[in-house]
């Protein structure tokens, strides 16, 4: 049985120097905060901006990419997840 997800309840704000989505789609915590396994936001828990335009906590997307079923794809758009080198 196949269904197609037509809408997400994704909320986007625009602001300087920040990813286009306000929350990490994986843990659903704001990018100002950390992934669920970290305590201090900032360099210890960085945000990875994918070339596809989707961003996640590095730790969150790492866990996903290591999952066999991810096949290396972005959890949002299912394109190959590649990130921009700073």
């Amino acid at each position: 049985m196949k269904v197609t997800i037509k809408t997400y309840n994704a909320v986007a704000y625009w602001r300087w120097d920040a990813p286009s989505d306000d929350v990490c789609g994986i843990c659903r915590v704001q990018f100002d905060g950390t992934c669920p396994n970290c305590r201090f936001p900032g360099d210890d828990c960085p945000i990875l901006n994918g070339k596809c335009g989707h961003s996640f906590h590095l730790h969150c997307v790492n866990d996903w990419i290591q999952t066999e079923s991810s096949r290396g794809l972005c959890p949002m758009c299912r394109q190959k997840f590649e990130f921009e080198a700073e």
Partner: protein
Amino acid sequence: MTSTQKQQQQAANNAEGGAKKKKVTAAQLRAQKDIAELSLPPTMRTHFPDPDDILNFELKIEPDEGIYKGGLFKFTFSINNNFPHEPPKVRCTQKIYHPNIDLDGNVCLNILREDWKPVLNLNAVMVGLQFLFLEPNPSDPLNKEAAEDLRLTKESFKRNVRQSMQGGFVKSVQFDRVLK
């Protein structure tokens, strides 16, 4: 607030309160957010048998249109510690006649299997489940006989669904009574 919302809130609060006592896992945190954000149509209700356990709960679906209208279908959700990297495990607790649900209650829904991705939330899964009752699909079946039945003549399929929902037999298998 409806009683369901109250219950959801309570489950979410309990999980939060538990944080002080024992470490809350990433899976619990994410499940808590998903549950707090559920916005289900009146045809679906969640129930938490143990309000301290937000990772195991029940979902009831009462389709208000389609072939399965008039039935009350029960599912269990169990979420493991790899959530949201792995989908929740969903089972139908009744024996029902449906092309995409086998006699043991296993559910064939793409977003619970190959098309799962961690940005999907519990709400999307629940809406997907309800869709199975509105549009049973003969391609990609788990119950091959029911799928064949639906493919050949929709009329006979409908009759057999009604029969099964009353607790009757279809092709020498007895089904659970699921009428409200």
